[in-house]
């Protein structure tokens, strides 16, 4: 039985290498995170994660990133739709540019967005007289989070649009449905799981984002500070259990987001098999 399972050589070597590397880079350090979180005691943990300044950062990191994820849901869906369905000059270029937030270092994105939206600069110059301040406000945080999460929605939705069978739309049209009815009742339902998966992935990325936000946010306590910044400031005070406590809380929250995304993905796969 076991010999049949391993026809090709290299099982022990490849799995051994994988597990060793995984332990060194991921498992052991994560164990340290859990260990340090508990080493400070329950009291210290609770006081750290419910500190009013830290709680204010949850609203920014978890609340504003939700707004950014929803914005990406709308524009990402639209972009995926036109990439998959329309022909227009420059489409391939735009498609390639979609992944720019993946490739551009976050610090570069951070200073570029800050320069773009600062008062007296590029766009800030036009927005300022209208009373819209972007840089060093929560809107700036929203802009950075939108930038960073955009590719996730497009990448999640576009392949599903591409593999939608054309005949169901034709059938709907033949049966007298208007285009809007076809979109609403035939096209959108199978796309919904992929869209939600993309939104959740964009959300998860924005929650943990650091580099692009710290420049544009100005890091104003109770206003634009993000949760990862709290970890950094605890570390600067050598409060390891405190930093670990916040890190552990973020890790748990991210785990929930990922689990929700996985559930949606399997739901989506089941959904797609039916059609």
């Amino acid at each position, binding site marked *: 039985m076991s010999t049949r*399972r391993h026809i*090709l050589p*290299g*099982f022990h*070597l*490849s*799995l051994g*290498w*994988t*597990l060793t*590397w*995984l332990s060194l*880079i*991921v*498992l*052991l350090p994560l164990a*340290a*995170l859990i*260990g*340090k979180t508990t080493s400070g005691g329950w009291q210290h943990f609770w006081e750290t994660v419910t500190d009013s300044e830290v709680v204010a950062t949850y609203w920014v990191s978890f609340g504003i990133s939700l707004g950014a994820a929803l914005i990406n849901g709308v*524009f990402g869906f*639209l*972009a995926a739709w*036109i990439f998959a369905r329309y*022909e*227009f000059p420059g489409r391939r270029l735009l498609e390639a*540019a*979609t992944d720019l937030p993946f*490739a*551009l*270092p976050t*610090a*570069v994105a*951070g*200073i*570029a*967005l800050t*320069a773009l939206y600062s008062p007296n600069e*590029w*766009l800030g110059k036009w927005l300022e007289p209208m009373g819209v301040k972007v840089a060093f406000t929560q809107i700036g945080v929203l*802009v950075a989070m939108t*930038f960073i999460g*955009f590719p996730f929605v497009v990448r999640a939705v576009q392949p599903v649009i591409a593999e939608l069978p054309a005949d169901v*739309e034709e059938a709907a*049209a*033949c049966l007298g449905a208007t*285009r809007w009815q*076809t979109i609403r009742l035939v096209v959108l339902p199978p796309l919904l799981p992929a869209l939600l998966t993309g939104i959740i992935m964009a959300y998860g990325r924005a929650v*943990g984002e*650091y*580099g692009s936000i710290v420049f544009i946010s100005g890091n104003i306590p109770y206003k634009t500070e993000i949760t*990862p*910044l709290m970890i*950094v400031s605890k*570390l600067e005070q050598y409060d*390891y259990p405190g930093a*670990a406590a916040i*890190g552990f809380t*973020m890790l748990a929250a991210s785990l929930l987001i*990922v689990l929700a995304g996985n559930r949606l993905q399997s739901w989506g796969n089941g959904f797609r098999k039916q059609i």
Partner: protein
Amino acid sequence: MASFIDFRNPPGSDRRADLHVRATSEPAWLRRSFVTVVLVFFLLFLILPLVVVFQGALDKGIGTVAKTFADHDVLHAVGMTLLVGVIAVPANAVFGIAAAWAITRFRFPGKAALQALIDLPLWVSPVIGGLIYVLLYGRRGYFGPWLQAHDIRIIFALPGMVLATTFVTFPFVARSLIPLMQAQGFEEEEAALTLGAGGFQILRRITLPKIRWGFFYGVILCNARAMGEFGAVSVVSAKISGRTNTMPLEIERLYNDYLFAAAFGVAAALSLLALVTLALKTLAEWQNRRQFEAGQRAQLALTIEAPSPDQT
């Protein structure tokens, strides 16, 4: 404006074709507005930031850029970025091949859990990627006292920066190989085995050529992230210019010192890297799809041929 979008059926050309378009696509005005909205979004969020970087770098003339990169601290940061990449990327590339080989070639319990753990660095905050190593090797970390007694520095030095970078780029190569190798199957490897090839011979002469574009794709993404990483590295670096600053950290230092032209100069260099990465990535995707589809076709051919009567 009308010629901007290549309509498959220009309005009024043929009544029936027009009807068909109306039934299975959106009206022309709506399509045009969708494209415009997306273009504006791309312009505001993706293209303008890039323009700002290059404009900021060249604002004071090309001489300033040359002066920036003649600066000792900036050069040192370039060297540090390259050094961290040269260690972290090959390490994760070898890991990626080993992990993909183990996961796609064998059945073993706990495979799903292993895949989930490999993906973990993708969804945690990069700051946590730095934090966990500080907790292990930092002054008050678990191994801190022992390391201090032996005068070994990991945190606030190169080893910590390499570790944090390795963490955030950990899944890239493995993730780009696993679906590809799953689709390709391993009949050719088995054939090589029956013909007497050894394990490394199979890897080098059968598997690696089959997966080279997927591998290339993973390595490029891994490299871009490794050279551009900010959050994780900023936690474990002492941030001393000319000593432990990588390019992204040097950007922060210059920016906070109001040396904007220099900051944008370094940023422009990293943006060029990002653009090259995007171009190579698009190429790799295109080639990878071909290999992927060839693999699927081969698998399909096998499943169709196997039960046919003239084969037996």
